[in-house]
């Protein structure tokens, strides 16, 4: 067992490196970066401007700018601020949304009453709420949080509802026939049964939350005191005409979003040992 399993592990790493899929993926990204670089340099080398893409600062410039920016505390402060807003808004959305969704799923009267207003408000994009939110809440920070909350809230409720209602009624009946109380049913069947949907809703909601935080930072934090955050970083870089820094910001946000989603998936993985979800 031991010797052959060790060989298997070495074999796995080697096979990972020679795996066709991975090699192709790496090749495609390399080609993409090269085309991008060439597209930008085209103007310098040949005097002809490649339409659209030719204006985007080359990867080489972006990398150089990034290596400068990492040393500036302002950059990391943006990360911290954005992450904070995302985390806070997201958490509140989960804390309010999950119970709300579950309540709607289990109690049909509650659902009958509260789902319609929910559905009526849902098509209004969260960002459309920004001005109203600014009017309503005393501070800018709170107004951003509110809009962030809205974005994730809709998603999580819909997912929880769908997930809870799709639990096979047989499970509930089986439990009842073994003497479960209403509370038991909720805790031992409905809650775990809805967990996969909760995590899917959370992962999707996370993406939306980032979009909203970014937009809110760009729209409202643009010139104000409580600005800051990666959105503000991008916007002010743009205002200052430092386009390669804009791209640094873009990639940073992409990374941040990816890290958050991965975190959620990881937590989901841990809390649902019975399912290999993602």
């Amino acid at each position, binding site marked *: 067992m031991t010797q052959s399993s060790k060989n298997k592990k070495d074999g796995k790493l080697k096979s990972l490196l020679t795996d066709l899929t991975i090699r192709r993926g790496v090749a*495609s990204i390399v080609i993409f970066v090269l085309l991008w670089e060439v597209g930008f340099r085209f103007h310098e080398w040949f005097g002809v401007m490649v339409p659209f893409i030719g204006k985007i600062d080359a990867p080489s410039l972006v990398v150089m700018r990034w290596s400068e920016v990492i040393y500036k505390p302002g950059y990391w402060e943006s990360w911290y601020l954005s992450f904070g807003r995302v985390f806070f808004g997201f958490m509140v959305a989960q804390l309010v949304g999950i119970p709300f969704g579950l309540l709607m799923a289990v109690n049909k009267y509650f659902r009958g009453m509260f789902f319609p207003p929910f559905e009526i408000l849902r098509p209004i994009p969260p960002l*459309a709420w920004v001005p109203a939110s600014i009017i309503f809440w005393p501070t800018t920070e709170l107004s951003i949080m509110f809009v962030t909350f809205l974005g994730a809230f809709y998603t999580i409720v819909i997912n929880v509802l769908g997930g809870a209602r799709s639990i096979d009624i047989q499970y509930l009946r089986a439990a009842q026939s073994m003497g479960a109380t209403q509370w038991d049913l909720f805790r031992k069947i409905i809650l775990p049964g809805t967990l996969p949907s909760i995590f899917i809703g959370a992962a999707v909601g996370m993406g939306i939350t980032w979009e909203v935080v*970014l937009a809110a930072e760009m729209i409202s934090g643009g010139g104000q005191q409580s600005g800051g955050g990666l959105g503000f970083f991008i916007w002010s870089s743009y205002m200052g005409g430092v386009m390669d820094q804009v791209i640094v910001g873009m990639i940073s946000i992409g990374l941040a979003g990816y890290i958050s989603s991965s975190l959620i998936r990881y937590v989901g993985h841990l809390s649902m040992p019975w399912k290999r979800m993602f």
Partner: protein
Amino acid sequence: MSNQSVRGRPPSGLNYFLYKSGKALKTPMPYLAFIGIGIWLFSYFLLSEYWKIFPFYKVPGPVEVVTEWLNKNPIWGTSLFTEDYYINIWVSCRRIFIAFAIATGLGVPLGLFMGWSKKFKDYTFPVLETLRPIPILAWVPLAIVMFAGFETPIIYLATLASFFVTALNTMLGVESIDESYFRAAGCLGSKKHHVFLNVVVPGALPFIFTGLQISIGVAWFSLVAAEMISGDYGLGYMIMDSYMVNKYTTMVMAMLTLGFVGWITSAMVRAAGNRMMQWRERALGQGGV
């Protein structure tokens, strides 16, 4: 070979609609909905207009908004009867239409190929997945630099958002098709293009339409944001602009209109999907899938 029921054929069309409505009205559902919406509107009204509680009084209440909306000579300049209301709606809708059309036209074929050919997916998926996490709005500055004018960057942003969603869902749709269908097609003597047209495309259709509904929502989301940041005309612009000049009633009107229009476009996509997937409709009608 008779599948006739004892009392004749089941109702269809208008009769079916009336039958279902009749049944629905006997349940508590519609009344609860009425109560729920009523509670919401009423509390909104009480808090903002009647009792004028902080901070609710800063926001225009439902009565105020509706009266303005129906006013032939609106105080703040925009209502159901003014021209610019419709111009704004039209501009936003036109942009959505273009963005959605391009995104679907590019995204569906790409998704189909990615789902069908592992080789193709290996080469295209990594690049897509690297770009996808970047929030659409982060592209705003780049879009402004790349494209001239106002219109193109706005449409570009909505298209981008919609494209990612459509491509991904289409790909998942193809990957969700039961292996048996591919095998059945194979052992009936199909060539590759037969499999593509007869298995891949129809098989992925349910996922494609779910994706399209999500993608039109995402397109609206991005469009509104783009209009708010750098626009002229459009519902997003209308919201931002009326906020800037303190025309709050108009602002709320724009928000609600936006919600309504967004809902209609989503419903249209859903209806189109149902039309194209007749086989599902009929199977569901029989009580099973």
